[in-house]
């Protein structure tokens, strides 16, 4: 099928295989002589390993531990602080200490029970609040913006200063397919297959752990049942486990998590605390704002410093705030390490800022949306790091259109009347305004990622896409094939795009940061254009295209100045809720969403991103609750945690605004993460509108609602 407009939807390339259930995910793979692995995990949050007494092993069963690691005993992410097998200190409950490998899972679990490990327990830091109090283990910190001295001076002349603290909880990915990885021993190479987003992250981790050459390891992506960031950094550790084991036992070793293990030991969205200090004049106008972000990094650094960067870079949202200052920290706690999750620090920042702006608006006696609109950034204006918003911004149009469609004012009046007459059920409407910087921060694409893509045309004129990015459900098999096909003027079905294998594909970077369509897609567009120019029928041809950095205001990571992102995607969400003030239950009623993602490469695929991302974002605001007690994650099943079912979600009325970006293929910008960001703040704003009570945390669970209502009643009596 050749579509006239690339946005026109097509049937996804992998649709038929997925519906039939015959696509082999890693847990569907069986190999001759394959063994399973199970991990002995630390039962304590912080302490020293004194002794390990392994169980007596039957024939064919093996122990794999730190002593088997040929290279460095750490998972290569940013800094070498994450052991593959902890052999001296353990830093969180669930940290792997050794692995047992053998044929029968049942036997392995029994053997795990027989192992005896003695620890010397030390005093652990369990919560972010404890860590903030101590401020002894800072994993990363950044500060930028107007000097605090200037801000203090402004504060002195202010009419009032509003100080708020905001908290966000864990969020768990709950990809439907639990993590799984298979290590395969071959004479001349170790092969790792599994569910993953970032093939070359894994490959680099393996080269470091196995102390081997580039051509001695090979990583192949299996069909991947959802990622959302959960399969960005975490799989590198599992890959090291199975690769080391496979090398020792010289057989294939499979490591599969069941759901409870997956919930308890894998990375999550960072819990955060955000402090705001905002100076207002007599009319409620903002004179200055300073923000302090604290992220709970968990026990290892992982990707946390980069998550903090994005949290801070988004901390002023879509607003032009006069005299802005931002500072942030990642703090270590003895809890499961936190990592990448769709939005990557931005959802915390937007939830906090939109909440704060809404509260200030009410203090100023204004409708939150009207108040926030006054501060919207405009094209050409500086970012908080003195970069520029260079491209057109359609936020005003998007808001105005939505208000008209909804008949917003009338609706607010209707809700007010309804609420006056209804003692129990209360209706509310809330808005969130947000953006997402597309691709890696600053010069990351140029300096760290250096993406390369390849198109191969065979003698039979078959075109193959050779990149290292994963289709994990978001649909890049289809969208990227469409881009190549459109350039070549052939039907997209004719483009071949196999699951990537590092032996066969160059490093086009990880499948993260809303970069794949925009950055990798652009490289493929260029490659396809060149292939078309050089096309010789019946001859094998190969086109390689390297990343070219767009000239911007240079990014300086030390001072946090310059253009943090090449482009921004934008969004407006409006959510209507009904709250049962007796039970605290929140029912979503209507959801409206507008987005500027440049240009949709496939409208139906984009709608899938919108609906799925919004469901996650909305649920982050009021449903999904994960907690840790004395370092132990309390939710061991999906139901304990509470992601939405079909009955919790309602139809989402969404609209796209074409705003082509010259640096993206056909004008496309990032979409995957953007769609999650506005959900929680919009739902909070709607609940506040319904109950006329401010909230200072997400998720706003029924318990929190009832507590707040009781507190208000208590205050009214006092």
């Amino acid at each position, binding site marked *: 099928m050749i579509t006239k407009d690339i946005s026109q939807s097509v049937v996804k390339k992998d649709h038929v295989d997925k519906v039939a259930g015959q696509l082999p995910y890693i847990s569907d793979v069986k190999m001759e002589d394959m063994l399973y692995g199970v991990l002995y995990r630390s039962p304590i949050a912080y302490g020293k390993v004194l002794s390990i007494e392994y169980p007596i092993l039957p024939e064919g069963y093996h122990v794999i531990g730190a002593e088997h690691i040929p290279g460095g005993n750490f998972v290569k992410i940013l800094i070498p602080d994450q052991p593959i097998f902890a052999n001296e200190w353990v830093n969180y409950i669930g940290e792997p200490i050794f692995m047992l490998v053998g044929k029968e899972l049942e036997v392995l679990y029994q053997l795990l029970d027989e192992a005896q490990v003695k620890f010397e327990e030390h005093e652990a830091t369990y919560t972010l609040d404890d860590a903030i109090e101590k401020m002894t283990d800072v994993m990363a910190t950044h500060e930028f913006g107007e000097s605090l001295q200037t801000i203090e001076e402004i504060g002195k002349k202010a009419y009032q200063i509003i100080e708020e603290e905001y908290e966000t909880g864990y969020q768990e990915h709950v990809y*439907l397919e639990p993590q799984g990885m298979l290590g395969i021993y071959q004479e001349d190479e170790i092969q790792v297959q599994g569910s993953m987003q970032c093939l070359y992250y894994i490959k680099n981790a393996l080269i470091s752990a196995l102390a081997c050459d580039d051509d001695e390891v090979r990583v192949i992506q299996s069909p991947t049942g959802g990622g959302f960031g959960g399969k960005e950094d975490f799989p590198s550790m599992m890959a090291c486990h199975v690769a080391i084991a496979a090398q020792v036992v010289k057989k294939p070793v499979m490591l599969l998590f069941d759901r409870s293990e997956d919930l308890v030991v894998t990375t999550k969205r960072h819990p955060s605390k955000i402090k705001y200090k905002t100076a207002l004049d007599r009319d409620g106008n903002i004179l200055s704002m300073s923000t302090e972000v604290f992220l709970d990094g968990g026990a290892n650094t992982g990707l946390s410093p980069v998550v903090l960067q994005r949290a801070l870079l988004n901390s002023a949202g879509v607003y032009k705030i006069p005299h802005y200052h931002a500072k942030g920290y990642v703090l270590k706690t003895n809890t499961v390490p936190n990592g990448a999750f769709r939005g990557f620090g931005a959802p915390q920042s937007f939830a906090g800022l939109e909440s704060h702006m809404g509260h200030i608006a009410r203090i100023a006696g204004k409708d939150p949306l009207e108040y926030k609109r006054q501060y919207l950034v405009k094209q050409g204006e500086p970012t908080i790091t003195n970069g520029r918003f260079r491209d057109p911004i359609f936020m005003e149009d998007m808001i105005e259109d939505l208000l008209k469609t909804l008949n917003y004012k009338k609706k607010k009046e209707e809700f007010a009347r309804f609420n006056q007459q209804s003692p129990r059920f209360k209706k509310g409407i809330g808005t969130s305004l947000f953006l997402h910087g597309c691709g890696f921060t600053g010069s990351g694409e140029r300096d760290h990622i250096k993406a390369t893509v390849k198109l191969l045309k065979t003698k039979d004129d078959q075109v193959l896409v050779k990149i290292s990015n994963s289709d994990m459900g978001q649909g890049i098999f289809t969208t990227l094939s469409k881009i190549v096909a459109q350039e070549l003027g052939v039907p997209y079905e004719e483009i071949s795009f196999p699951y990537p294998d590092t032996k066969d594909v160059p490093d086009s970077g990880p499948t993260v940061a809303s970069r794949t369509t925009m950055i990798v897609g652009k490289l493929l567009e260029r490659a396809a254009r060149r292939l078309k120019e050089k096309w010789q029928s019946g001859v094998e041809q190969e086109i390689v295209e390297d990343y070219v950095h767009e000239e911007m205001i240079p990014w300086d990571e030390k001072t946090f100045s310059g253009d943090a992102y090449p482009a921004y995607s934008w969004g407006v969400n409006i959510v209507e809720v009904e709250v049962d003030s007796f039970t605290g239950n929140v029912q979503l009623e209507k959801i409206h969403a507008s987005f500027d993602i440049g240009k949709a490469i496939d409208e139906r695929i984009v709608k899938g991103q919108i609906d*799925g991302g919004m469901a996650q974002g909305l649920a982050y605001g009021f449903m999904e609750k994960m907690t840790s007690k004395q370092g132990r994650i309390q939710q061991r099943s999906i139901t304990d945690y509470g992601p939405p079912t*079909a009955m919790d979600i309602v139809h989402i009325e969404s609209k796209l605004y074409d705003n082509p970006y010259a640096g993206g293929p056909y004008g496309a910008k990032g979409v995957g993460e953007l769609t999650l960001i506005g959900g929680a703040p919009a739902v909070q704003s709607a609940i506040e509108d319904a109950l006329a009570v401010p909230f200072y945390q997400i998720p706003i669970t029924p318990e929190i609602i009832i507590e707040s209502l009781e507190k208000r009643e208590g205050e009214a009596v006092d």
Partner: protein
Amino acid sequence: MIKFKLNGSVVETDAPSTVRLLDLLREEFELIGSKEGCGEGECGACSVLVDNLVQNSCLIPIGALEGTDVQTIEGYSKTPQYQVLNECYATAGGVQCGFCTPGMIIATEALLSKNPHPSEEEIREGISGNLCRCTGYNMIVDAIQLAAKKGDGLW
């Protein structure tokens, strides 16, 4: 020895009666279409039809299957109803990562065979035992509405 019908053919197994149906399907019969997402009956990725009712195969000990009629996605995919669902899920965009999809298709069949013209609410309830983390469900609901229309008479 336990005897039951699997995808139209009578099968026998001498596996212990406490073995989970999901394991029997995946290990003994090498039917990989039923996926394990939780192993606790919470996600529905392992849904199969037992006597035309949707069931989580991870919760069924095979001893309970004597004399029943079990249909997995592999058997169901040979039916004309499946063809309609396949097409409608494509048109509506109801598939992303695909891990929940076979189970979701089975739940759809169970719903439509009982209620060929369900309301939106009935659809949401009908698939509420099947989790999907990618789509936010709406495009699956659309797919089922479309199937009810297109497949009129089949259910």
